[in-house]
């Protein structure tokens, strides 16, 4: 827990992250550095351990071994895999955000869009209704939801709007690290493209760091600066996105890249 100059320390340094489900392996000895403003893609087929990595880092699963040093706002470094529950949950509602594949898992479907966006503000102590509402309106604008839908229930929204609403809800407190689990997985292609545009813009404008889990290599190419390719719980190849996708070295990555359907 020693303060260090920002430029020399990655936002998140993961080493030896392992998750076992009894005999079975979720992920094995995963390690990487995530720098501030960087988007890291985790790709691989289903069951390759991408989501296990994400869930362990986001504190939703308990890792079996490994460490993950997170560089906090106050300049101190903590191992988020060993952090007690109270500070971990505090991080989860301030510095982190989780975008779920199914927006219904990440939203409160019983309350209006405005309340969904405002909840994280209220969770960090905002007690002024007018300010919460202004901020919610501003964020609806940023994610291209018509502002007159602020008092509508999410149930009346389309799939793409729901996902954008979830993104607004996550980003309203300006988190420094965003976990995304197949953020475009449940959407059709044209809606996907629009959402990816939006995400790219937000990531660049806000200087967000993000870990994006996806099985869709096109999504990875558009969003991620760097890629980790996983198979059977292990990282088999990593590097810059273009490099990995255009010149895959590992036979599995070559298979993965060549399996993409061409329209």
């Amino acid at each position, binding site marked *: 827990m020693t303060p260090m100059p920002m430029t020399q320390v990655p936002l998140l340094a993961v080493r030896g992250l392992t998750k076992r489900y009894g005999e079975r392996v979720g992920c094995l000895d995963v390690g990487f550095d995530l720098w501030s403003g960087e988007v890291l893609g985790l790709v691989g087929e289903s069951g390759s351990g991408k989501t296990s990595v994400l869930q362990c880092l986001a504190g939703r699963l308990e890792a079996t071994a490994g460490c993950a040093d997170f560089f906090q706002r106050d300049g101190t470094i903590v191992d988020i895999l060993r952090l007690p*529950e*109270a500070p971990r*949950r505090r991080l989860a*509602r301030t510095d982190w955000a989780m975008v779920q594949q199914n927006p219904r898992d990440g939203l*409160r479907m019983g*309350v*209006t869009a*405005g*309340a969904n966006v*405002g*909840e*994280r503000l*209220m*969770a*960090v*102590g905002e*007690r*002024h*209704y*007018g300010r*919460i*509402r202004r901020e919610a309106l501003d964020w609806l604008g940023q994610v291209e939801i018509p502002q007159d839908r602020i*008092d509508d229930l999410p149930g009346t929204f389309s799939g793409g709007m729901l996902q954008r609403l979830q993104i607004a809800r996550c980003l309203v407190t300006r988190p420094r690290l965003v976990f995304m689990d197949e953020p475009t997985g449940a959407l059709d292609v044209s809606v996907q493209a629009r959402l990816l545009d939006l995400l790219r813009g937000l990531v660049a404008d806000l200087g967000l760091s993000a870990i994006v889990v996806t099985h869709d290599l096109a999504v990875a190419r558009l969003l991620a600066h760097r890629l980790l390719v996983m198979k059977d719980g292990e990282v088999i190849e990593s590097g810059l996105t273009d490099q990995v996708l255009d010149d895959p070295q590992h036979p599995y990555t070559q298979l993965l890249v060549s399996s993409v359907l061409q329209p």
Partner: protein
Amino acid sequence: MSGYNFAYLDEQTKRMIRRAILKAVAIPGYQVPFGSREMPLSYGWGTGGVQVTASVIGPEDVLKVIDQGADDTTNAVSIRQFFARTTGVKTTTRTDRATLIQTRHRIPETPLREGQIMVFQVPIPEPLRWLEPRESETRKIHALEEYGAMHVRLYEDITLHGRVATAYDYPVRVNGRYVMRPSPIPKFDNPKLDRNPALLLFGAGREKRIYAVPSWTSVKSLDFKDHPFTIEKWEQSCALCGAGDSFLDEVIVDDKGGRMFVCSDTDYCARRREPTR
């Protein structure tokens, strides 16, 4: 009454409940689990309140029981008679003469004083239940003071109705720490909880929880800075006693739409109508 222990409950059970009450008093607003017993009345009729009352009542006590402010409704009369029979204590309808008051849905208008105990009947003790169905999770939220989401409900009220529409069981923060349901009292009574000289005990029989607000504890109703907490107001005064400061019930008096507003606190209303000496 022969064949029954004093105040119906056996001494071991009373001891267990008193221990829960002591813990509840030590941690204001915290819900203490206790081994709720079967009582000779059904859940929802005040089994929690009856068990708390049975555990704290002594032969010297003077008991008052109210239901929606009234001393003469079925529930109030039954519970009062139950304790009169099983303990032999004196009962009263006068707030100022009672040492122990069991209540459903009201706090009397007459100010309470130090040394009095007020027992509330609680249907649902958990203020977070509407937003989180898991008990394990609500306990964690209480432990870590993650109360931000409580304001989501107030936000929704203001958004949909222009004001906080929650009119009863309005959530409060006790002693700057635990968020608590004050039981279904009207929010009109919420300010009476704050720094009240009497000891306030809350019993939920079905949900098996006891909590407390000790004398003189701060109790603040949740609100927004730009939408501060307010209580109900009436344009009318009580049609019987003329009080302009009490909680009024609207009573239909005929089948032609005639109605009148009267004090919900029958004792308060009756005292005001007594000829002054």
